[in-house]
């Protein structure tokens, strides 16, 4: 499957990663990973530092040679192709903009290497700079740019030669929070407009959820879950996913006769556990919990003691101690309606809607 633009030439290519392994001495950076990325898809490799996400991206770019396995762009096996022949755009974490060239020099560099005529280079550079909203800055030196502007130049340089695959290595991590969130949306829009297959690496789970068609969560060189942002957040498949993505507290439950029990009380579940073997944990996300004052229809009820209130502006977090040294938290939006938060030390009852009651295994069955 290859997406095609109006002119009839392919604008994106599918990527196929098959059984790729990379080791450094005794350390396994990538452990036999396979992933099929659809043409035009925006996929995010999400994982903590040292998880192997950047290694995999470097394998795609051709900077790291895997020990075994295969990488295909479309029908073409690129496993042994050197980086300069892969024709993929890449945005580096530190941007890697050449300090001895101007903005236009940087953006025009890949075109000059491809022997494009001078007048056409100027034209295309101007167009792509306009696209990333830097139209006026072509003559500037790199050290005269702000962090956000550098980010845009790096992006412009990566897409000016119309690669059908775009790789991005934590491109927004150096920006402050506000600019980062703005750029997330911009990059997303740019992808929707240009349509190239995009592989995005980040350790920021919120960024991954915001931007991607699919999220591939990676840790210790293996994929732990691959799915839509909603899937990964709402239906985590393991304890690691539940803890890594979003805030959650995990509460051990016991299984008896196919039903989950919390302190001898049966729980109503959204769906039967997907990996029923081994110890199961209940995923308690702060925003899913309700502070109970009266009715408890369709809710699983937990009783505990309020411990601490943390004011966070748009919402307030209340930490609650459940019996057996288990801690959970509940988030209350900052509105004037709804029950007042109980003072620390007072008993509270929490309700978790059956539809949000999700079990995960300690470790996903291989």
């Amino acid at each position, binding site marked *: 499957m290859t997406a095609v633009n109006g002119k009839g030439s392919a604008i994106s290519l599918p990527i196929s990663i098959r059984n790729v392994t990379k080791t450094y001495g005794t350390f396994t950076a990538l452990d036999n990973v396979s992933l099929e990325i659809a043409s035009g898809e925006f996929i995010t490799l999400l994982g903590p530092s040292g998880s192997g996400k950047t290694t995999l991206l470097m394998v795609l770019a051709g900077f790291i040679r895997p020990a075994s396995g295969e990488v295909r762009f479309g029908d073409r096996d690129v496993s042994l192709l050197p980086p300069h022949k892969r024709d993929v755009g890449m945005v580096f974490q530190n941007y890697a903009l*050449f300090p001895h060239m101007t903005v236009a020099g940087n953006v025009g560099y890949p075109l000059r290497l491809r022997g494009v005529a001078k007048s056409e280079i100027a034209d295309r550079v101007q167009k792509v700079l306009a696209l990333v909203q830097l139209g006026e800055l072509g003559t500037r030196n790199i050290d005269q740019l702000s962090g956000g502007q550098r980010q845009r130049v790096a992006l412009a340089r990566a897409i000016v030669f119309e690669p059908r695959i775009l790789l991005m290595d934590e491109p927004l991590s150096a920006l402050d929070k506000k600019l980062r969130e703005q750029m997330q949306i911009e990059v997303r829009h740019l992808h929707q407009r240009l349509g190239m297959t995009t592989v995005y690496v980040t350790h920021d789970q919120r960024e991954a959820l915001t931007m991607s068609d699919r999220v591939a969560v990676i840790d210790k060189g293996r994929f732990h879950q691959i799915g839509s942002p909603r899937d990964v957040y709402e239906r985590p498949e393991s304890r690691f996913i539940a803890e890594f993505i979003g805030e959650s507290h995990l509460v051990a439950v016991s299984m008896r006769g196919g039903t989950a029990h919390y302190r001898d009380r049966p729980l109503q579940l959204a769906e039967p556990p997907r990996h029923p073997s081994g110890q199961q944990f209940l995923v308690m996300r702060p925003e899913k919990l309700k502070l109970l004052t009266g009715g408890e229809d369709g809710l699983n009820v937990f009783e505990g003691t309020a411990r601490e209130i943390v004011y966070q502006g748009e919402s307030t977090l209340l930490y609650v101690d459940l019996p057996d040294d288990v801690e959970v938290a509940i988030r209350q939006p900052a509105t004037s309606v709804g029950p007042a938060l109980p003072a620390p030390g007072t008993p509270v009852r929490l309700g978790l809607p059956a539809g949000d009651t999700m079990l995960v295994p300690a470790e996903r069955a291989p």
Partner: protein
Amino acid sequence: MTTTSLADEVGRRDHAAWKAPNEAAYRRRERSETTVLAALAVPGLLLIGAIALTPIAWLFWLSFRSGSDFTFEHYERLLHPTYTLTLQTTFELSFLVTAICIALGYPLAYLISQVRPRLAGFLLLLVLFPVWTSLLVRCYAWLVLLQRRGVVNSWLQDMGLIDAPLRLMHNFTGTTIGMVHIMLPFMVLPLYATMRSINRDYMRAAANLGASPVKAFWGVFVPLSFPGLFAGIIIVFVLCLGFYVTPALLGGGRVMMWSMQIERNVTYHSDWGAASALGVVLLAMTLAILWGVGRLIGFDRIVGGR
């Protein structure tokens, strides 16, 4: 906005009138810290003034004196072919040595900058080792190596590359070999320092954008190494201009350098005026070159500001 709130008004008036009681204390502290810092530099500045600037000023004064009269004769004499030829030799040799140092030093520095740190340390040690050995010892060592029946000639003859021994010393060739050997570390060190600081992502970015290794090297790596290259060129060239020991020993009196003319005037003719004029000219030329290069590429780049 036409109205200002009372609070704003009060605030502004207060700010104008209000003077922090400890403001003066902060200023005093700042002044005393500046003074302490300046005081630390005084011994160094005095030393430089006493042992560098004063003699130079004296030299300058001497170069215009003959007996007790003011004169230009020392400078006029420099137009004589003996001196212009020496000047030509000095520049030719300095250019040649600098060029060879670039040709040998650049690949070497590149290698050291690319290998693993442990190996890089070892290679750097090899580069630095000669610097820690006496200059004189190294020059005499070259005399042994390069003489008519020296190691180099006998090797070349044994391998059948030449029939008769080459004249490798007491001429331009020998002087060049010796000076390149002495100067090479001064080219390699600044180059290495600059190359080490070039982020590998630049080369990766170039490759990713479609540059073959050769194109990435010339288009990205070399320009980024310019600060170190310019620093190396200036150090080597300027040192060459005033170099004495190696040309004197390996040139065997046949390669006349500017510095040797100075020595001659002082030792044989006791003509301090002429020697001073030569010194002043050398200094002026060096400064002119530094200024010219500085104008061309900017001093901050040489010093490594960027």
